[in-house]
């Protein structure tokens, strides 16, 4: 179970209090009725699903109830940073989005074999 820092409550709380809410920083098109089907599919269905650094929304549903953003590593599941909703996407110090993470199972279990 993850331990998540809510930037509004300013407390580390158990994952049970939170609800994952999808990729962060996706802007709804202004004139959504005017966009093409391709653009709608892109906005509505296509997500980055990154292996490594990802930006996502969480909601402290059993706490303050508010949405916030988080930067997390999807290989180690480690939270790198959380910040309030509405703030722009921020780089994580020392981590670039293209950096390869080394804690994959292939490297651990694969080597063990």
């Amino acid at each position, binding site marked *: *179970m993850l331990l998540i820092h809510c930037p509004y409550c300013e407390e580390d709380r158990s*994952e049970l209090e939170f609800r994952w809410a999808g990729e962060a920083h996706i802007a709804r098109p202004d004139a959504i009725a005017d966009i093409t*089907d391709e653009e709608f599919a892109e906005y509505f*269905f296509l*997500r980055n*699903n990154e*292996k490594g650094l990802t930006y996502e929304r969480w909601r402290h549903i059993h706490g303050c109830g508010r949405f916030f953003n988080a930067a997390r590593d999807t290989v180690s599941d480690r939270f790198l940073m959380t910040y309030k909703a509405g703030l722009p996407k921020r780089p994580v110090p020392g981590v670039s989005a293209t950096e390869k993470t080394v804690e994959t199972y*292939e490297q651990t*279990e*694969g080597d063990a074999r």
Partner: protein
Amino acid sequence: MRKYSVFALAREALRAHKGWDAQWSSPEPRSSYDVIIVGGGGHGLGAAYYLAKEHGITNVAVLEKGWLGGGNTGRNTTIIRSNYLYEESMDMYEHSLKLWEGLSQDLNYNVMYSPRGVMMLSHNTHDMQSFKRHINANRLYGIDNEWLTPEQAKAYCPPLDISKTARYPINGAALQKRGGTARHDAVAWGYARAASDRGVHIIQNTEVTGIRRGPDGEVTGVETNRGFIGAKKIGVSAAGHSSVVMEMAGVRVPLASNPLQALVSEPLKPIFPCVVMSNTVHAYISQSDKGELVIGAGTDQYNSYSQTGGLQIITHTLDAICELFPMFRRVKMMRQWGGITDNTPDRSAIQSVTPVPGLFVNCGWGTGGFKATPGSANLFAHLIAKGEPHKLAAGLTLDRFRTGRLIDEAAAAAVAH
């Protein structure tokens, strides 16, 4: 390939089992192939087998970054059924179930397909209405599925608690008798052996790190940790890593990778005769031939490639199992693991051509890919060989997210399926 039979077994028994060959060969990769399959799980190995067997394409390589069946093929709870709601799903899963029925004979490899029945528990009026709708849809389509009263369910599966005072009372169940289980490792090994015998190269410990494309955008091969390997066609069948591989060719697929967990108990004597699933309280359970209770838990809520998951997911499932089957309350759990499932927005698979010429994708099987293994592999081979989908898989295109023609099994199953 040496045929496996009772006579071969008897002969080897007299010779201290020294005459068995390796089940498949592990050759050095050629410089290029007609078809490269990325991903050596059941779906990928099966596709290579059917390419060779049904389409005469034998210059094929299966590239696997780890070992055969080490991903979701070896991590699932081995449930097989075809009682889905929508025609596109019924077409695919019923095609698969029919192949399961003859798979051991076809491959000359015992995959231990056991049609012991899959029972889905109904706990409330909504469940009952939903299951009866499934049953009617299935029967109209020629797929077996029947409604059981609680007493009939108890007769089919004696460990079940159907008392009125149970924590999760049962008001009936849907039963597909042809559903059941199979041995997951044997599926990967059986396909690998049969494909290798027909000339397919099975190349393990080789990770695809890039997809190279020609001047017209068509694929020309893959970069791997063992160098470049050319290919006229590439079929991606990489489960939870499908979006990572497709990104190498600049194709985005609507997938979310989530951990899904399973666990097994210490081995017990035969006590549990069928597969029981409860979507409402989220538990599934069966007993393997080794005697372990095989229990499927849920997915974690967030995207992850960690192949682990939160302990609260498992305890939630075990709470439900202990209420449904009070006799299992003191059974010890032995092992727990996670696999990375690739989930689409409508929880139906994608088996499709892509905007990149020569690149085909088979993904999005999410939490229910094992049961589809033979059918999916068979139809994926057709797609790669012909360049267009078989009519049984015609609805599973990538394009449906643009046209809006979704196959909403997410709503139909209510949970991971």
